[in-house]
């Protein structure tokens, strides 16, 4: 569009309801702070805006040893922290170790599992990770215990962001409130419960972001945020458009200027506790898969998603176009129930988060299950309680993942296996709420991840696709329901491709978005 030319500068207003948790890259791990942390700090490698393609960042260049076990990075000399100090290899080593260090109480530890010595660091028996070496200020060398195709993706995670040791030690636990990084923006002001003000980092080592800065207003009720957005008081409503307002906006004349609606690496599903009678019977699990009327559920959320038939979202490499999953088939489901000897059904509980639209979806599921004789009592609770229930082997039988649906940390199918379908996640407090742990699949998974060479990429994806397809068709530990599209509401003056508002890995690319002339 003609007017859609990037204008350097300008500051914008972004709103969220919840208070900002923390901006500490070793800890921050939610929707809200992910993109801000991303813009405050920099990492060895990064993604090209709006894509999943790895590009150099702190690292100018890198080499991978033939066996795929040693990664060596050359750092960009221009990189500086916002406190003026140069970024050195030691900083990066320190930062990653910090992420793994249990004292940090961060969620990141697991991601770096393939680095030699991560385990010792994680259980507190070592104070450094032997697999990370900084021979000189501008060279960094990682040694892996086994080849890992996703290692570069891991290094592109916020958890691998570089932080200045001296500041971290000075601030201690408050670093998350007074972050200092080497990213595109820096934090100017943080008024708890009210706003955070970010401004452009003038001596950013990569090309400057378009915006001079952005202001994040928190405690903003989504409905009100949309109202303000319509009045032009707000540029991005971070919590998206609440269901109550969606249709109104969508059908309004200037919808196309206001709404960014894009697919993401997301699947919303029902976990079926494979250890709980009678759900341990695969036929029952298949019956459940057939019973759920996904089209209607999608309609309930105003078509803001596409029905899902498998674990992986369509965007994800390894998505099996051939596999159609279980079609909606009440009769078939009933038959399976018969075979399982449950002609007159059984009663169970369905956990779900208590924020709209999840209770509604849960009720839709409840009705569908009732149709095949499964009486599901709904427990609509706050997120932590649902997570606790799911992470407790003998509590949650069925759990609707909506609102907490699995969103990939990086664009690789393996990310959909480990924590949520692998044995590693099937622990008290873990996220494998189906408690699905099958040795044969474990082995296939580790094998697949070992194929780290670039040329093996496509083959590897094929293997993963097979794994997920088999899991569903043989074991059906999940009933995938839909792949939710992310919807962001932005003011008319905001420019930039949809991709930078709904970035597959960063959520919002504060570096890339801009205001129109």
């Amino acid at each position, binding site marked *: 569009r003609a007017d859609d030319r990037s204008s350097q500068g300008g500051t914008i207003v972004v709103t969220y309801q919840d208070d900002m948790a923390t901006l500490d890259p070793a800890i921050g791990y939610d929707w809200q702070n992910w993109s801000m942390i991303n813009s405050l700090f920099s990492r060895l490698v990064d993604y090209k805006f709006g894509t999943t393609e790895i590009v150099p960042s702190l690292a100018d260049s890198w080499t991978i040893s033939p066996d795929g076990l040693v990664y060596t990075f050359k750092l960009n000399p221009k990189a500086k922290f916002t406190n003026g100090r140069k970024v050195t290899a030691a900083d990066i080593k320190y930062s990653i170790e910090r992420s793994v260090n249990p004292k940090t109480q961060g969620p990141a530890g697991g991601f770096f599992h393939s680095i030699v010595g991560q385990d010792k660091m994680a259980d507190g028996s070592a104070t450094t990770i032997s697999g990370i070496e900084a021979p000189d200020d501008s060279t960094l060398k990682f040694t892996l215990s086994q080849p890992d195709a996703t290692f570069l993706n891991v290094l592109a995670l916020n958890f691998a962001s570089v932080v200045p040791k001296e500041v971290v030690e000075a601030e201690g636990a408050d670093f998350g409130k007074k972050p200092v990084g080497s990213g595109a923006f820096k934090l100017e002001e943080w008024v708890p419960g009210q706003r955070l003000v970010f401004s452009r980092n003038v001596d950013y080592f990569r090309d400057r972001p378009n915006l001079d800065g952005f202001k994040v207003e928190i405690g903003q009720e989504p409905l009100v945020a949309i109202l303000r957005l319509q009045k032009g008081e707000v540029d991005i409503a971070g919590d998206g458009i609440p269901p*109550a307002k969606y249709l109104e906006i969508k059908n309004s004349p200037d919808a196309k200027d206001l709404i960014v609606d894009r697919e993401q690496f997301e699947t919303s599903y029902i976990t079926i506790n494979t250890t709980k009678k009678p759900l341990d019977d695969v036929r029952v699990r298949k019956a459940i898969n057939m019973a759920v009327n996904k089209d209607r559920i999608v309609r309930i959320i*105003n078509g803001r998603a596409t029905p899902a038939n498998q674990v992986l979202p369509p965007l994800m490499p390894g998505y099996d176009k051939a596999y159609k999953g279980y079609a909606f088939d009440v009769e078939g489901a009933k038959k399976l129930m018969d075979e399982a000897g449950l002609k007159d059904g059984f009663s169970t509980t369905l956990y779900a988060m208590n924020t709209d639209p999840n209770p509604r979806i849960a009720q839709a599921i409840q*009705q569908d299950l009732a149709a095949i004789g499964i009486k599901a009592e*709904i427990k609509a609770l706050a997120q932590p309680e649902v997570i606790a229930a799911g992470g407790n082997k003998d509590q949650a039988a069925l759990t609707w993942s909506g609102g907490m649906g699995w969103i990939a940390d990086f664009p690789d199918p393996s990310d959909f296996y480990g924590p949520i379908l692998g044995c590693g996640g099937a622990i008290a407090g873990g996220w494998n709420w189906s408690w699905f742990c099958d040795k044969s699949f474990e082995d296939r998974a580790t094998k697949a991840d070992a194929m780290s060479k670039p040329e093996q990429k496509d083959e590897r994806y094929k293997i993963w696709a097979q794994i997920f397809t088999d899991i569903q068709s043989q074991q059906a530990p999940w009933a995938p329901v839909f792949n939710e599209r992310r919807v962001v509401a932005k003011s008319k003056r905001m420019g930039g491709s949809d991709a930078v508002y709904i970035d597959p890995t960063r959520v919002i690319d504060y570096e890339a978005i801009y205001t129109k002339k």
Partner: protein
Amino acid sequence: MKRALSEIARQPATCVAVLLIAAVVLAAIAAPWLAPFSPDAQPFDGLSLEGAPLPPGPKYWLGTDTLGRDLLSRLLYGARTSLVIGLVANGVAVLIGMTLGVVAGYVSGVVGNALMRFTDLMMAFPALLLAIVLAALLRPSLWIVALVIALVNWVQVARIIYTETRGLVERDYILAERSLGAGHMRILFRHIAPHLLPSAIVWGTLGVATTVLLEATLSFLGVGVQPPQPSWGNIIYESQSYFQAAPWLVFIPGAIILATALSFNLVGDALRDLLDPTQRGRG
């Protein structure tokens, strides 16, 4: 009794109120027969193609909710829950409040004092928390929510009643009763409690609506009635943010709650005048 009826008959407003209450109670009892649909049924045509709830129309008289369920049917069934909450829970709350208030006010000294401190504690205590924990520990049910509400709402009443009682015990006729050798129980229940009835009624009726709404908050937190069981409170609560897109989902139940509460209030006032012999033959 006859007097009662004639009294009420003299005030048209009260008559309307009585009829309305009767209607609500009837609706609650006869819901299965009156409701055109099952309250939980989510017919496919209950939502527009875009998934929007349907406004009142020929098929769904009061429209449908955000799951495409018939609002009328849900309101009819919801009456059951909400009556229990608004009457039983609220009633129990007032009862507890009265008992504690009266006792605290009557037995001055250590016991009374202790009771008031306990009231203070309850007043300072975050009720929602209790609710959440109960929600998770117990199997949520209508009776839990009733319990919680009772536990939450008695405090104010106790406070008010307490001060009133303190005034009453100074009165001469209480002394007269004691000089006749009346026991404490007799004085408390035959000679003090009746005089507190007016305030009890006022607070009771004022409480109807508030408790019905409070129930919704609690269901949201997971205590008490869980979906799909309807209650007037959670019908509003579920869709309160839709009040622009689907006003009928908020304002129809809202109006019903209000009307019911108002009726109870009117009847309560009438009742108060009836039960007060000193009102007899006065203007």
